[in-house]
């Protein structure tokens, strides 16, 4: 052993010489990994973080999740896989961090939640250049079909939750602070339910809502989202020759995201040092200026900024950095919890979901068990409530199992535990076998929606088809399906989401997602998460 010491010493000396002489770039003494879980609204900032990682020799990984999911992850304390959390609002840390594992929390940027409305529509409504547009006016115009409205799910995403709390304040006649008594007021519940019924497209994530609007401008007229993401959307829309959105700061019910980045204390000094270094970098003057150039409100003092670039903070888009922002007060934790429960089980627009379940031979064993577990999360009342996935009394779930053939669809209405249990029993009894014809099954799923289309009630719901599948499908019915999607009058307005198990053919699924503005999720290790997302997107 003793003989090793000189060798080690020489080796260390050699390393010191190599580093000291500049042969290998010196790296501030930082090392290691940093895994951040962030809201999807921060995606545009990833290059800044990656560059810092490269320069400092830290392997930074960012996983994007909704703020509500981040809050839920924090409930697990320091046991989770993440070293840092970056939700859209401090609130989600304060609600989720019950074990007090988060430290060094700093707000990196701010962005108000606004309505982005296609500019020609804003002009027609006479809303350009005004500062007195209320939530009530937005509701009236949307109900009169002046525009189609989209927002994220309040129980999955902070921008949706912020807009929803804004509605509760504005339609509740501006209470000093929202209370449990206010939430129990049926007149208020009716008004909020009416407003949420105007939502044509929902989403589990602010970033994806913005992406789908940019990719499918004809399917959207307006979205509630962060000012920063409306700016990002406008940059993309203008680049592709489309009309930009006009930013409406509601005169009532406005709130501001504060985007706090906090460290999850697991007692690792190396990770903590890397975190603090990254945080200081993000808060440094040059990076804060960079954030302003990316449409974020940054800096240390207040929300206003002088000399901002008008190509980004474009007055033509209604963006106004110096406008006084008077946000609503955040209610206390018990009120927030009850408001979210109320949203999920009573007030949101009801969903009409066809669950297309693959029971072909290749699903035998683990994939089928996973599928059953996933459906259990939705259909078991208790498990669903824990994950804010519970059905409302107005939801409709249709189960359609298939292999190369399909079983007759079974329809379950409402949230009665007995009916849900029956549905769950049906799922638990499914057995794997046979080939895979996903296209035919989806065709039958569309057929199951046809009666709602025929009587004009389809869009009283947020309709969606969610396929859970693992295998490449027989393509014999592909053309038939694609043709039907185009011609049946509603196919392209009903998103087809897919939850992929194992070796599913992603190109096939992608084609369908794109034809219908649906989204693909991997069942992977976090099935509940995938499901929550799929569910949040409808």
């Amino acid at each position: 052993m003793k003989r090793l010491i000189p060798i080690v010493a020489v080796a260390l000396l050699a390393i010191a010489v190599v580093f000291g002489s500049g042969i290998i770039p010196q790296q501030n003494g930082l090392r290691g990994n940093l895994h951040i879980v962030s809201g999807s609204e921060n995606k545009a900032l990833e290059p800044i973080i990656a560059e810092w990682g490269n320069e400092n020799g830290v392997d930074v990984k960012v996983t994007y999740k909704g703020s509500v999911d981040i809050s839920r992850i924090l409930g697990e304390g320091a046991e989770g896989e993440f070293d840092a959390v970056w939700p859209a609002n401090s609130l989600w840390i304060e609600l989720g961090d019950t074990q007090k594992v988060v430290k060094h929390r700093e707000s990196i940027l701010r962005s108000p939640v606004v309505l982005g409305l296609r500019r020609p529509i804003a002009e027609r409504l006479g809303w350009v250049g005004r500062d007195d547009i209320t939530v009530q006016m937005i509701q009236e115009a949307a109900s009169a079909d002046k525009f189609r409205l989209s927002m994220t799910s309040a129980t999955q995403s902070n921008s949706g939750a912020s807009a929803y709390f804004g509605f509760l304040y504005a339609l509740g006649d501006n209470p000093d602070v929202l209370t449990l008594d206010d939430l129990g007021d049926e007149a208020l519940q009716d008004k909020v339910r009416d407003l949420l019924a105007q939502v044509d497209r929902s989403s589990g994530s602010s970033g994806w809502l913005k992406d789908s609007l940019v990719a499918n401008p004809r399917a959207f007229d307006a979205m509630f989202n962060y000012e920063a993401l409306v700016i990002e959307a406008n940059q993309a829309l203008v680049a592709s020759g489309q009309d930009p959105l006009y930013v409406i700061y509601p005169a009532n019910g406005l709130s501001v995201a504060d985007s706090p980045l906090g460290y999850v204390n697991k007692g690792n000094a190396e990770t903590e040092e890397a975190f603090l270094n990254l945080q200081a970098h993000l808060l440094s003057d040059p990076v804060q200026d960079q954030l302003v150039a990316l449409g974020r409100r940054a800096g240390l003092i207040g929300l206003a900024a002088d000399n901002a670039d008008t190509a980004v903070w474009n007055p033509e888009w209604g963006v106004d950095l110096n406008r006084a922002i008077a946000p609503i007060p955040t209610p206390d934790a018990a009120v927030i919890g009850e408001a979210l429960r109320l949203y999920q089980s009573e007030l949101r627009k009801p969903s009409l979901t066809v669950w297309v379940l693959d029971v072909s031979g290749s699903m035998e064993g683990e994939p089928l068990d996973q599928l059953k577990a996933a459906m259990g999360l939705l259909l078991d009342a208790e498990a669903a409530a824990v994950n804010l996935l519970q059905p409302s009394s107005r939801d409709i779930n249709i189960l359609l199992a298939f292999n190369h053939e399909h079983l007759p669809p079974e329809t379950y209405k409402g949230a009665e535990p007995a009916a849900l249990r029956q549905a769950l029993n049906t799922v638990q009894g499914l057995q794997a076998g046979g080939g895979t014809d996903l296209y035919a099954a989806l065709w039958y799923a569309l057929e199951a929606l046809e009666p709602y289309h025929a009587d004009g009630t389809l869009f009283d719901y947020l309709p969606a088809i969610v396929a859970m599948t693992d295998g490449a499908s027989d393509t014999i019915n592909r053309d038939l399906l694609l043709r039907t999607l185009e011609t049946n009058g509603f196919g392209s307005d009903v998103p087809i989401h897919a939850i992929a198990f194992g070796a599913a053919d992603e190109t096939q699924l992608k084609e369908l997602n794109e034809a219908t503005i649906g989204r693909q999720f991997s069942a992977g290790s976090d099935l509940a998460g995938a499901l929550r997302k799929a569910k949040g997107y409808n």
Partner: protein
Amino acid sequence: MNRSIIGLIILLVVAGLAAGISFLDLSSLTRQVERRDPVEVSIFYGGEKSALLKNPQVAEIIENRYKITLNASKAGSVEMVTTLDSTGRHCLWPSNMVAVELARLSGKPVKSDETIFNSPIVFYAWSDVADALTSAGVVAKRNDGFLTADVQALGKLIEDGARWKEDLGLNIYGPFKVFSTHPAKSNSGNIWSGLLATVLNGGDVPTEESLPTLLPRIEDYFAAMGHMEASSGDIFENFLKQGMGARPIIVGYENQLVEFLNENANFADLIKSKIRVIYPEPTVFASHPLISLSPVCDRLKEALIDPDLQAIAWAQHGFRTGLIGVENDPSEIKAAALPDTVSLVVPMPAAGVMQRVIAAVR
């Protein structure tokens, strides 16, 4: 009992202690040498002193001059003297005088306590808010240029249900209120609830007898706050970063601005143009008593009252000295302008009264 008599008693006690200590020291010269042996001191401290303890100059004095290895853990000022297990800790250093009494009530082995620093509770307000409150006759400029708030008039605004927009002409949501941290979770909110209780009690420090009529009013005030931050540092940061609409006026410590400007000198002009410091009259001191649970704590006490350390605490962190007979000179603070004395100070209500106020707010 009038002030001069109290002063005389304090003087006698101090003189007596000094005589006692010097007598002990003289009794053994070898002991002087032993006292400089390295010692490890383990403490809980209130988060308000994080920056001070991280200051390399302060650490240098503690480690090298006094040979102390400091094992310091941050904890809530109320928590550390009540529910938190303090076995193995030699001192507790909360940010609240009531904590000393609470520590005794919770059965901690309190040997002695010494007030190391004071920092008065102040309001931080956006300049438009300060102007509106000046027009409303609540805030006034003193002869030396510092702003003061008549807390009785402020209490009346609150009790009358004055509104930001309608009564004060500012684009801010809802009724006029002073934002604070949660009184049950954080020290500045806790002290503010004590001061507010005094204000709502007509300016007299409330006693057990005044509580039945007072508690429902305090409860209503804090219930209308909605969500409150759990830390004084967080609310100060949110106040600055989120702008006037979100937090027009907050309760903070006088020294917070000094520390902020020392860290962010390039923001001094912006702060000067947009932010106002308002001294409530009367105010309450956030005191920082060092509670000794073991003789080991004495070495740390000695270090903390070292004139050099006290000078750094004032010049760089804005902590006024808690030591009797020592005065702070505002010109030593480069980052911010502070008044040389804060004279209109009321004590916090007694621990028993505060416990009931906190229970009502919780």
